[in-house]
């Protein structure tokens, strides 16, 4: 297992390096020149040239890359060209926003989808059919639309939640929970549909296995058969889908953050990309890839714990 994890870790490091390098050269080769935009429309040629020099845009691309990489491996991701803030600080402030959303959405997804999936598999009949129809509808509805409706009803009309903004948990825990509830709900809807459908399918397969019939015939309590034996064997497939959903939710957060005026990683990524703020784009990309690698590793560990066959393979 340790060798397996070390191999995955090494692959993750290579992945971070390759994606960061590709991003650097892709942004460098677009011909973007944000100096004029930073200096302002009415800035003269001399001011723009001075800004270009200050940003190092008059240096060869390879030289700039070597410089960036040298600093990045030491943990210095540079300074945002537009806000003059250290990239590590900008990302460090945005990351908790996105992680709050995504983790809340994942917890919600895990809890709701397992209950729904197991219920549909065990009960069958109308419960199963309702779940399947609701899954298709929930999967088809874009999460930004769900977000807009939730904001309109629960924030604007009823005033139960804030419509925009993020509250740090260290400042106000209840305010933090309120600020992420609607966005997390909007984000989780599609994921719940996907994971619930996966759980239902896996549970139906497992419940048809001979060993389940044997356990039942030996008189084990139904709850024990269901939760200790059937669900544990059905869980790896759901967990794999859930870990994939985590990555998809980070992508989905880009839109949801905009709808709720949250400055998370997604909002930072889109605004930095549209402005041509290369250091911030690179910082966001590096941190996001590292996050994805960590989540995949954790999923591997969890799968290994649930199913020893994974460790062996």
């Amino acid at each position: 297992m340790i060798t397996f994890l070390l191999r995955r870790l090494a692959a993750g490091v290579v992945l971070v390096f390759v994606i960061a390098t590709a991003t650097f050269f892709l942004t460098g080769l677009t011909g973007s020149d944000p100096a004029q935009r930073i200096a302002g429309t009415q800035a003269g040629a001399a001011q723009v040239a001075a800004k270009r020099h200050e940003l190092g845009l008059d240096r060869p691309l390879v030289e700039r890359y070597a410089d960036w990489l040298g600093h990045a491996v030491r943990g210095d991701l540079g300074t945002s060209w537009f806000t003059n803030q250290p990239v590590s600080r900008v990302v460090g402030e945005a990351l908790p926003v996105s992680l709050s959303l995504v983790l809340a959405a994942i917890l919600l997804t895990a809890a709701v989808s397992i209950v729904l999936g197991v219920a549909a598999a065990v009960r069958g009949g109308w419960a199963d059919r309702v779940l399947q129809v609701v899954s298709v509808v929930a999967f088809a509805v874009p999460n930004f639309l769900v977000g807009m409706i939730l904001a309109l009803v629960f924030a604007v009309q009823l005033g139960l939640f804030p419509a925009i903004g993020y509250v740090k948990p260290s400042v106000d825990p209840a305010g933090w929970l309120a600020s992420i509830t609607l966005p997390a709900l909007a984000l989780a809807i599609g994921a719940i549909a996907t994971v619930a459908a996966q759980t239902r399918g896996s549970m139906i397969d497992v419940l048809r296995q001979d060993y389940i019939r044997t356990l039942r015939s030996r008189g084990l309590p139904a709850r024990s058969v269901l939760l200790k034996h059937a669900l544990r064997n059905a869980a790896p497939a759901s967990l794999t889908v859930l870990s994939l959903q985590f990555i998809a939710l980070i992508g989905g957060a880009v839109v949801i953050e905009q709808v709720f005026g949250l400055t998370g990683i997604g909002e930072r990524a889109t605004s930095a990309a549209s402005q041509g703020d290369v250091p911030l784009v690179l910082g966001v990309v590096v941190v996001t890839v590292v996050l994805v690698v960590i989540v995949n590793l954790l999923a591997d560990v969890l799968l290994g714990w649930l199913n020893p066959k994974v460790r062996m393979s």
Partner: protein
Amino acid sequence: MRRSIVAASAAAFLFGLSACGGGSSSAEGSQTLTLAIVTPPTSFEPGAMAMGGPEDHYYQAVYDTLLALDAAGKPAANVATAWSYDPSNTRLSLTLREDVTFTDGTKLDAAAVKANLEHAKKGTGEAASALRAVDEVNVTDAAHAEIVLSAPDPSLVPSLARSAGYLASPKALGSPEIKTAPVGSGPYRLDKSRSTSGDAYVFTRNESYWNKSAYPYDQVDIKHLDNTTAAINGLRSGQILGVSAISKDIVQGAKQAGLTVATYDNGTIEGIFLWDRAGENTKALGDLRVRRAINHALDRETIVENVKGGLATPSAQIFAPTTSGYDKALDDAYPYDVAKAKRLMAEAGYASGFTLTVADFSPVYPDEQAAMTESLAAIGIKVKYTPITADQAVGSIIGGRWPINYFNLTSSNPWAFAQLTLDPKAAFNPFHVTDPKVTELLETIRTSDSAEQDAAYKRLNAHIVDQAWFAPWAFQQGAYALGKSVEVTTVPGVSVPPLSGFAPAA
């Protein structure tokens, strides 16, 4: 079944707990002014910021300006209580208040003014460009300074009421910290510990500010918000009290929600800017008849109604209504007349039209670009669009890559506008087109006194319209959407109402 009820109850509790926290963040009714701005501040360093966009609110909170703008958008006393030029218009004398102190305890005096102007002139922003004629700043005594110019500059005084006039503590100037930690003498201080960079900025009252009564709020919170839905929801829920209505969606959304939308002349002219007016790369544009045909092809009234949601004033001229160069008669210099436009095209030898390759600005200005495409198509001019990224837009225009573009630019400071678009070396005269009459009139404006200057501006405006250097369609109206508990006094010629213009609703 029992477990389902327990699960449902737990979910309801969680939901309820969350809901409890929602109401506390409302800004309505408090002495905190919460505004939203579409862009975060780039830098708080004097000389590095933009001249007058929506981000002005960040800077107005912490910095005093040498001069202010009055209700008509004209320069007015602020830190400088009096100012006057010598007969040659190359020496500007300033008299300063003597009761102003920066938040680090440094006195705001003539030496501080000198340090700021010299620092801003060396900067990389628009303020540096505005101060280009400044040769030196002399300190007469603590309360008097003299700005010496290399040549007369009619735009200098108005610029001192904008970002070129921001004053930071001389001790902080040049330090790397000032980019994110301003030290000014303005009505508020930035509370960095409660701010999140690029997202939310908290400004608390500067208790020793000399003009506290002009700023009724104890605290100003500014949130970076660039999504229309979020802006409208924030206004409707009372979480924000004001946002610049940069799109007609925000205007319509705010009006539908029963909120107030304050409108004002922001001094920006928009339409088709005909860069290659000498026909260097696109021969057809060098023909005056083609440029006039383009002007006649614009249905300005309809564009204003459909594209701008009525928030603009149709016009074919370049100088804003608040300026001395404005001439109402020129608004309708090119009436909408497609038949006449086609005749002019035929006379110029382009009866079957021609094709232009233009930057695709539709991601930012979809309706404006559609209006341009449709108007030009009506007289046979086809437009092929080339995708570009947002950060390439201005650079590619200045580099002379496009013959025309949909564009907008403020002309509330006519000399600055002329220096930016009409002068042969101007950045937005990318093909460096020269015209002896334009050069002569610019020289007259530069060297003359007020009355002669005003007349020259009018003659310059008329000449530019006659020669169809541009095909403007309207002067924009600024719009600012407000929450129910706030009212605002607007100032013409600027993109957002000044921070001092906000007050709790009566």
